[in-house]
């Protein structure tokens, strides 16, 4: 019974983790950027969805849609205002770009956090579930919204897979991640590829943010933790490997859920943090990473 409970609950959480982390991984793979304002984008989308659905009274569907659009906008602003200027700056030495992007996005994440706390609130918000009701899965009472969350996540992941592997745009993304120089030599504009990847990233992160808010609730104080969890999943799976991130998300999600149910909820994150340290020690490239 307990095992089944862990199986069902862990699945929904892990799927959400996976969706949040995949965009993070994609953007590193294609453009070499580790975006430490990731949690900020997720929470911005969630708060927008909450605000449009609740105080503005537009209902949860429009709210979710609006939230995702706002998330994409914030992601594009992140790219346009923070990442791109750093990448193009002449004053920053080439081998230090990575560190500047890390620091810059970190600051940007704090700015998003403070802006949300100031203009809205820093107390936890919950977006109204997209559908109500409870479904009985072999004796485990599961909110229908939890199932819908997992379904939406997997549909998004499936669409991403199709996009990357079956379309011309996706082939360009892949090519950029393997050899950006080669792609430009073939006459493709690298900056439009990067713009594309940020849009895709924005959609993924925003969906994850909105769903997280319908499912667990969120607040601007969660931004740091959300970024850290995406970062650790992606490193555990191997930087730049999308399938690695998927596997890692399930490992971390289930480990956390099992710890919360079997030991105590306060210890929730400890085993996954220790696992992370262990894996990075033994296998720095992560589960499926390339060196």
């Amino acid at each position, binding site marked *: 019974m307990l095992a089944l409970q862990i199986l069902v609950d862990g699945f929904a959480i892990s799927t959400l983790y996976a969706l949040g982390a995949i965009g993070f991984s994609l953007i590193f793979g294609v453009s070499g950027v580790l975006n430490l304002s990731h949690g900020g984008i997720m929470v911005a989308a969630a708060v927008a969805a909450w605000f449009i659905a609740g105080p503005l009274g537009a209902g949860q569907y429009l709210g979710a849609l609006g939230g995702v659009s706002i998330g994409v906008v914030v992601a594009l602003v992140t790219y346009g205002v923070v990442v791109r200027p750093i990448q193009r700056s002449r004053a920053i030495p080439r081998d230090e770009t990575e*560190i500047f992007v890390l*620091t810059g996005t970190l*600051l940007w994440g*704090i700015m998003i956090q*403070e802006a949300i706390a*100031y203009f809205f609130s820093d107390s936890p918000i919950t977006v109204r579930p997209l559908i109500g009701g409870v479904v009985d899965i072999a004796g485990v009472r599961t909110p229908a919204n939890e199932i819908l969350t997992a379904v939406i996540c997997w549909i998004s992941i499936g669409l991403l897979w199709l996009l990357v592997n079956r379309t011309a745009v996706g082939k360009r993304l892949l090519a950029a991640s393997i050899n950006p120089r080669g792609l430009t030599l073939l006459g493709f504009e690298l900056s439009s590829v990067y713009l594309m990847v940020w849009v895709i990233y924005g959609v993924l992160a925003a969906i994850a943010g909105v769903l997280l808010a319908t499912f667990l609730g969120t607040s601007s104080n969660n931004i740091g933790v959300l970024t850290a969890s995406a970062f650790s999943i992606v490193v555990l799976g191997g930087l730049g490997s999308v399938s690695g991130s998927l596997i890692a998300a399930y490992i971390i999600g289930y480990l956390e859920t099992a710890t919360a149910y079997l030991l105590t909820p306060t210890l929730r994150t*400890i085993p996954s943090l220790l696992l992370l340290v262990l894996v990075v*020690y033994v296998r720095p490239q992560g589960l499926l990473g390339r060196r």
Partner: protein
Amino acid sequence: MRILSALVVLLALATLPFWVSGYILGVLTIAYFFGVFAMSWDLLFGFAGEVNFGPTFLIGLGAYSAGLLDNHGVPVWLCVIAGAVAAVFGGLILAVPALRLRGPYFGLITLVAVLVLQQVIVIFAGVTGGEIGLTINDVLSLDPGYNYWLALGFLLISGIVLTLFSRSAAGLILQASGQDPIEAQVLGFNVVKHKLAAFAISALFSGLAGAMLVFYLGTASVDTVVDISVGVQIIIAAVLGGRRTIFGAVIGALFLIIAGEILRPLGQLSTFVVSAVALGVILFFPDGLVGYLLRRGERA
């Protein structure tokens, strides 16, 4: 010339307790300890090239070791030394992965180190005071002027030691091994030894400053010495002042703490403004305030 003007500024700072209020002295005292944090971070990041997101791991170890010992009746100076020893030990623990991992991977380990320390403190709340914090019964001194001088003197000594180290041959080797470890090794330098030394020195000053800060504040809490946001502030201070300058970190820390106090009426927005300014500096003056001035001085 430069030394003379530095001396004048130093003398002026030393006379402050005679003519400014206790409030200003209090702000500056904290800013000085913060300056030491930022300088220690700059040694690891600017010179050794290690992306360290967890300066508060070392600071927190020093602060909590000192605080816990004090609660068991150990004399203050012994607590401070013990805090420094604990931090150096922590620094060496961090150095082990740093020797194997590069860039973001090491950054993640440092982030995790802070999170684990924070969780441990919260879980063992019975001993550590948990999220509320640990009350410290002893103080460095009751006189704000004396506390101020202590902090200023400590900042001065740390600054001199760290600057001398960074400009010594060892500092240059450190810089080389940060930028290209393989080439540095090929040239016959012992990269491992220098990196270990950098971690030990950085941790020593972080731990000392953390332990002294705890006795100044009268409390050790997760929010003041361990939380990631504190680490972020330290990183901002060092980058703002100018990385790879040591001295710049102090200027950055002073700017950050004083700006935070001045912007206090803005309430929650003050952090936003400070972060925005820091982001602007990174985008437009990536060498930081001091780095920018040094460059201009060279060109003129």
